[in-house]
Structure formats: C-alpha cells, structure tokens
C-alpha cells in the first residue's frame, strides 16, 4: 500500500517551521546550560573504561527542563558509603542548535577526544554524548549525561527536532584537573569545584630571612660520647648530666659540657638511640662522667673521651634565628687546618734574602706548604748612568785612580746609599767607566761618590737616576715529621731594603688528615615550630680548628613570592609532587591543591607554573576528600592508643 499522494508527510518547509518554533520556545522557556564535552586522557581497552578524563571546553546552549517540578531520581539518600545525591535531570535541547553550534567543535578538527587517542578514537561528534557533562546553573550543579533520547517526540512531520538528555548528578573523582588542563574555562564552574574532590591543605612559610651562627672553639672538650648501654623502659626522654668542667666559673658559664638524649622505640621498648652534645664544654683535664637520669627507664650507660690538646668547635651560638626554615638547614663548617708555621726573613747587605728565622713550625703538614715572600718595596733615586769624575765633580778622562783592581766595589757619599760598581783596572788604574752592579737608592743627579777601594782616589758623578723595583725572592719549605723545620731559598730576589713579610700557607689540603687525627666538625641545626633556627647541636666537635673558625648556615628556601592562581600546576622542589591549585589564602598561608600525584614534604619549595609564585612547605595540614566522609585519620588516632603497633600500619607504609 502506498501512502496517499495528496497529503504530505511533512515538507521541508514545514519541518523548518517546527524547528524554528522549537528553537524559539527554547530560547523563551529554557535555561542556559553549559555543555562540557568529555575528553579522554587515558582509556583501558581491556576493562573498557575511561580511566582519566578531563573537561576543559564549554558551550552554552539553551535547554528546556523537562522535570520542571524538581529533580527526578531517588533524591538524597543515605547509603553505606555516606550521602549519595541521586538527583536526575532531563533537559531538552534543540537538535539544530547542537549540530550548528557544538558539533563542529567536536569533530575531527577540534575534538581532543580524538587527538589524544589516535589509536583508539571515539569519534561521536554529531550528537550529544553520554558521559559528557552539563552544568545546570539554577542549582550550580554538574550532571552527567546518562542517555541521549533522540526520538521523542517521535518523527513529527517525518523528522526529529530535539534531543532529550537524561542526566544524573556527576560522580566526581579527580577529573577537571589533568596536567594539561587549566580549568573548565568557566569561572562559575571552577568556583563551584574549588571545594570539591580530594584536597590537600598545605601550610606554607610566609617569608624567610637568613639565620646566623657563631662557632666557639676551645680545648679540653668532650670529643666523643659512647653509648655503652641503651637502657630500656623509657617513657619520656631522660636527662643527660655531664660532670662539670674545672674551668666553670661565673665568667665561664659554658665551660661544662651539656648533652641531650634521643630515644627510639623498638617494638614496645623505648631506649636511647643516641646522645647528642649541645655544648662540648672546655677546660676538662680528665673525661667527665655522664649520668642518664629519669625518663622512667633504666640501664642506660654512656662514657666519653676528651681532647686536651687540639681545638674543636665546642659550641654554636645562634646570633640570628632567621625565619622561614621549615626543615633544619645545613650547617657548613670548613675543614680544620690546625696550627700553621711562621717565620721571618733576613736581608743581606746586597739587598737579597739570605735566610729565615723560624718562629713556629706548625703541625700536621702532609706536604710542604708554600712559602710566600713579599716583594721588595720600590726605590727612588736609583743610579742609572754615571761618569768618571774627581772629588769636586769635574769630569776626568780614563784611566784614572790608583791601587784598584778588577772587581766589584761599593761606594760612599752622595745623598743615597747602596751603589755598587764593577771596575776594570790595569796597573791599578780604572780603564773603563764603572759598570753599575746595584743602583742603590736615594741618589740625585750630580751627586759625587767615592769608589771605596784602591787608594780611594777615584770618584764618580751621577748623571741620572731612575725608579727601581727589584725582584721577589722565592723559597721552599722543608718538612720534618709534619713540621716546617727549614727553608731552601730558590731565588734570593733583589732590592730588599727591609726584611719582607714571610707567609707560610696553612691550608687544609696540605695537612695530613690520615695520621694526625684532624677531623671536620659536624653540626645539626634545629628549627622551631615557628620556622626559626633555635639551636645547633654538635654531632662531632671536630679537631684541629683555629680559634676563629667561620661557619655558615644555609639560607631558608626561597619563599613568600607571588600569588598562586586557580588551577595552575604547582610542583614541589624536593618531592617532585605536582598538583593543581584549588585556593590560596595569603593571610593564613594555606594553599589548597587538588589532583596531587604525590606527597609534598616540609621544605618543598612549591612553584606555580603560571604565576611563578613560590612558597616553601611548612606542614601538610590535611589530605582528604572535601565532604568529611573520611574518618580514617580519627580511626587511626584512636587505634594507636590500644593497638600494639605504632603510628604506621602495614597497609600504609609499604
């Protein structure tokens, strides 16, 4: 049977009219919803489920709310998993509007659905998709499309004009915050989601200033504490008492050593793990006794050794506590050099270095230290040219003088001193103009000098003078049993008027650390809850330090810079953990982040990828879902009071 040819079953123009009417009705009676297409980040093809999704596009479209009397579904119900909001929503959208304004962006060109999963694409671009989200602005809620009904009403005039989206409230895990997703691009939705999901709340350090410490050195100090017996049964930290130093007095209140005990728990037994010096003391002539008192336990025994010759770092004073230290900073102490050698020089009559006087040979040298001799001072009035003359300064011709021989002769007279000349003589007379061996200093042109020697009857007249410098002497040191015992002059130099200063290098790299016992000190800084440096404990006081040993303490991590912005990616410097910013409260220094892929640790410098803000982590305040369902922490706290294993449990520590 054919259809009646005299009746149209819907012409294009009629269909067009209905579509236009529907579109208009929707714009009049509808609600502007926001359509968020799902983009697949990772799909498990075996279990056939989308493991990671993101929603970073949005499209506004008008929709008619079918369930105009309220949400459908079971409503808010109590389940064994807490509150579950089973609200349904059915909305109707225009097929034409969707295809004209949303579909083109979901196709091959714009759909990240496909781009990120080239090998496993789901290319459904022509219609609304199950799994996509819509944001319902009246309730400020996110709904997930469960089913797209495209045939209701059923082919009016031969065509379908609308889609019905059957939706249910979204089940949220960690979507909306993948690494490459900045936001849903809609501020309204972002603000709704700020307080949803798994949120880690981190207390940050506001700003930091450098701490400063001073090392105090001394001898007769406690070199090392040995824990002979760690005791047992301690319920609190016992007090460590060290007998007083003979040097203790009102003016030396820090002469007596002090230490603290650090306890550890093995099974159910608390014992002493180590004893750390807070002050190594000084002036001890014999090893003090150590008493470990209190703490509810017994049996701990410790002894110590002392150092009465060399110097160690016996105490650290915190001169500036600084700020912004969430974790103890590193204390840098140079290697010890112990005592160095010292000597003075001797200058000979020819203005060269002729020897040294060793005042102290130093100690523990492993290789001969360099000897550094200061250069000679510059001289003015150094004779540069001269002429033969008589005693009144008149030029005389050669040969002249009597009784002279070939050789070097000093001179006298004139305004300066030190001129030495070499003569060539025949039959007692000088036959050549004297050659200047050493130009002396302080002379002026026209000075008349007598050549001392022969019959003292030959004179010279100074024609011109100049400024002279001379050359720097060099020498090597000689070692015997780690001490400098002498020197070898490798270059006597010249032009020395007064003995130059001699420096014998005293560097740690020339010292013998193997057999000497020289030891580098080790210290451990402690920080307060307020992130300041409170004290520096002595792990090893070292040996062989000079009295003014410089020490330095690391700067606090760079912190207190900039303002984090919503949903930017932040990264921890130590942990490497990454997260998305939820909120940043500058006044409380609380940063809330979501979508973390690890655990931030105190001391982490968290840097924002977009804002470049950087703050260091003081502590992790909480890490939980925002809806207060989780009671894990309370359960664990309670369990710790009666379970026979401590803080950690086997499910959390491996």
């Amino acid at each position, binding site marked *: 049977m054919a259809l009646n040819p005299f009746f149209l079953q819907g012409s294009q123009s009629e269909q067009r009219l209905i579509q236009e009417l529907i579109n208009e009705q929707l714009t009049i009676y509808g609600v502007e919803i926001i359509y968020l297409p799902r983009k697949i*980040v990772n799909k498990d093809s075996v279990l056939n489920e989308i493991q990671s999704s993101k929603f970073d596009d949005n499209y506004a479209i008008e929709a008619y709310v079918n369930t105009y009397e309220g949400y459908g579904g079971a409503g808010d119900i109590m389940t064994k998993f807490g509150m579950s909001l089973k609200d349904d929503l059915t909305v109707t959208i225009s097929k034409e509007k969707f295809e004209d304004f949303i579909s083109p962006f979901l196709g091959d060109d714009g759909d990240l659905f496909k781009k990120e999963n080239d090998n496993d694409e789901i290319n459904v671009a022509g219609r609304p998709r199950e799994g996509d989200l819509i944001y319902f602005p009246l309730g400020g809620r996110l709904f997930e499309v469960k089913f797209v009904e495209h045939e209701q009403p059923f082919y009016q005039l031969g065509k379908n004009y609308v889609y019905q989206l059957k939706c249910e409230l979204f089940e949220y895990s960690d979507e909306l915050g993948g690494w490459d997703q900045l936001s849903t691009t809609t501020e309204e939705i972002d603000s709704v989601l700020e307080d949803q999901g798994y949120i880690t709340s981190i207390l940050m350090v506001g700003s930091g200033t450098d701490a400063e410490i001073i090392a105090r050195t001394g001898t007769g100090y406690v070199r090392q504490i040995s824990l002979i017996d760690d005791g047992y049964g301690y319920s609190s930290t016992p007090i460590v008492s060290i007998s007083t130093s003979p040097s203790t007095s009102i003016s030396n209140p820090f002469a007596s050593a002090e230490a603290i005990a650090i306890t550890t728990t093995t099974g159910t037994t608390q014992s002493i793990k180590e004893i750390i010096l807070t002050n190594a003391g000084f002036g001890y002539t014999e090893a003090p006794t150590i008493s470990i008192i209190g703490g509810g336990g017994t049996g701990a025994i410790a002894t110590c050794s002392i150092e009465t010759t060399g110097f160690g770092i016996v105490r650290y004073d915190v001169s500036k506590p600084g700020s912004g230290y969430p974790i103890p900073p590193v204390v840098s102490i140079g290697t010890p050099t112990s005592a160095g050698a010292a000597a003075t020089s001797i200058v000979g009559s020819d203005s060269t270095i002729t020897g040294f006087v060793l005042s102290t040979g130093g100690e523990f040298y492993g290789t001969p230290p360099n000897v550094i001799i200061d250069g000679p001072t510059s001289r003015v009035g150094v004779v540069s040219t001269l002429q033969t003359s008589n005693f009144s300064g008149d030029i005389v011709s050669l040969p002249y003088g009597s009784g002279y021989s070939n050789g070097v002769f000093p001179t006298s007279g004139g305004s300066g001193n030190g001129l030495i000349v070499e003569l060539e003589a025949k039959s007692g007379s000088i036959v050549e103009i004297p050659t200047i061996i050493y130009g002396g200093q302080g002379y002026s042109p026209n000075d008349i000098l007598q050549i001392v020697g022969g019959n003292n009857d030959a004179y010279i007249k100074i024609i011109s003078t100049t400024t002279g410098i001379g050359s720097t002497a060099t020498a090597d040191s000689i070692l015997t049993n780690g001490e400098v015992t002498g020197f070898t002059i490798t270059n006597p130099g010249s032009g020395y008027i007064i003995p130059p200063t001699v420096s014998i290098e005293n560097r740690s790299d020339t010292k013998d650390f193997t057999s000497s016992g020289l030891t580098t000190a080790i210290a451990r800084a402690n920080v307060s809850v307020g992130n300041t440096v409170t004290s520096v404990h002595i792990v090893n006081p070292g040996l062989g330090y000079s009295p003014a040993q410089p020490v330095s303490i690391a700067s606090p991590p760079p912190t207190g810079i900039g303002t984090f912005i919503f949903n930017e990616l932040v990264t921890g410097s130590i942990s490497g953990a990454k997260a998305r910013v939820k909120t940043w409260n500058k006044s409380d220094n609380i940063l809330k982040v979501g979508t973390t892929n690890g655990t931030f640790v105190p001391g982490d410098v968290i840097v924002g990828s977009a804002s470049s803000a950087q703050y260091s982590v003081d502590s992790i305040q909480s890490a939980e879902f925002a809806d207060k369902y989780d009671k894990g922490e309370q359960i664990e706290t309670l369990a710790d009071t009666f379970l026979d294993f401590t803080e950690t449990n086997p499910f959390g520590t491996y």
Partner: protein
Amino acid sequence: MLGTYYYHEIMRKTIVAFGTLFNQIHIRHDDSSGNTYSDLKVPLAYGPSQKFLARLEQQEDLNKPVQITLPRMSFEMNNIQYDSTRKTGITQTFKAVNENTSAIKKVFMPVPYNIGFELNILSKLNDDALQIVEQILPYFQPSFNVTIDLISSIGEKRDVPIVLDSISFQDDYEGDFSTRRALIYTLRFTAKTYLFGPVADSSEGLIKKVQVDYYTDTNTQTAKREVRYTATPKALTDKNNDGVIDKKDDALLGPEDDFGFNETTTFFTDSKTYSPTQQTDI
C-alpha cells in the same frame, strides 16, 4: 544477677582495629603517557551513622554540585557469634597487675567471640577497585593478626586474627540507561576476639612463700614432719639501690617484678608438726 557494671569497649576496639587496617590505601591515575597525575587516598568510614549527622557533615551545601566523590570504602560490623572452638575453662581466673597502681586484679577467662565485618568498596572504575583490592588481599593468608590491648586496666593484650572469609562484587553494568553502572566490592572478615567479664580487685594477695612438709608415715594423726622445703621469691634487681642484691631486696618485690627463687630444705628431729591456724610448729 548480672548487674555488675563494666564496659571494656572490646567490640568498639575491635571495630577500630579492623578499620585502621584500611585507612591508608591510595589509588593512582595515569595519563596516556603513563605518568601518574593523581594520587588519591581512599576515604574510609564506618558505614552506619546517624542520618542527620551524615547529612550535616557530608552535605553542608544543600546544592552539592556532585553526587558523590569516588572511590570510597566503608566497613561495618554485621554479626557477633560465639566461637566454641576457642572455648576455655569458664571457672578459671587469672590475675594481672594494674600497671598504674600495681594492685592485683582478677578476671575470669575471656569468652571467645567471632565478630563479622564487611568492608565495602565503591568505585567508579573497575580499575580503581582492583587497585584497592590488590593492596588488601596479600596481607590475609587468610588471616592477619592485630594485637589489641583489650583491657588496658590490666594490660591484657591479645592477638586477634582477622580472617578474610570471602570476596564478592557487584557490577551492575547491564540494563537500561536510567541507572549508572554501580561497582561495589564486598570483603567479608571475621575478627576472632575475646570478651572479658568484670575485672575485680583480688583480695587474695600475693603468694610470697611456699612451704611443703614431708612425713615418713601416712598416719597424719601421729606422724611428725621431718623435712621441710620452702621457696620464697628472690630479687633479680637491686630494688633498694644499695648496690647489692640481697634479702632486703627480696622483701621489696612486688607483683610487677620478675623474680627467682630462694629454696631452703630443713631437716627436723623435734617431733613437731605444723599448725596452719597458728602458723607455727607445735
């Protein structure tokens, strides 16, 4: 008859001990390159709750924008059953020392009970659930022991095995599209705990001396004791801190101390016998 008040919170402690096993489980999500971009601690709570409290805590905002955050776990106690296989003598008591007061307490032997638990895991993805379950199962072979201080007043710690009885899961993926897929794993456990009766102060005091007399005749009317064996506690530590461990320390021994024995054997020829009432030889 049963009116003595006591409450050791043993079942509550067992619930807490069970729950704390599962409170640090995390799951991770990777991107397409295999890099982890999300690490979530799976929230855990005891399922039963006052309804109004749950709504106030979890739905502070009536217009909560999402249905639920997943995954999550809940656990609940669902049965209590007497375990006859662990039955002990019912009249037997044991004494313990109150660690705080050093007083002697007496309690009857506990009654063994099995407490059934159910751990439920709700997740959006099967993979999430598998991550969680795989982090739990290897620890139960088929039991995992926790040591619980069941009665702190006498320091009674007991190993309570928690046995994994069964695992089942519900994956409602079939049907029309009016409901979403629901994925719930259910793990059933039995905690083999002990219930204690009231703890009473013991008036019996400490036994500090044991004395045995030997006779050479079985006629108790005429026979006289001839050998006496006595045993008293011997201190192992210097209780009075005088530098030596001697009888003075023995006298200071308390119920909380470890001790050894002083043993004495005495021979008699005085034809006397011991009078328990007069506590002397007559």
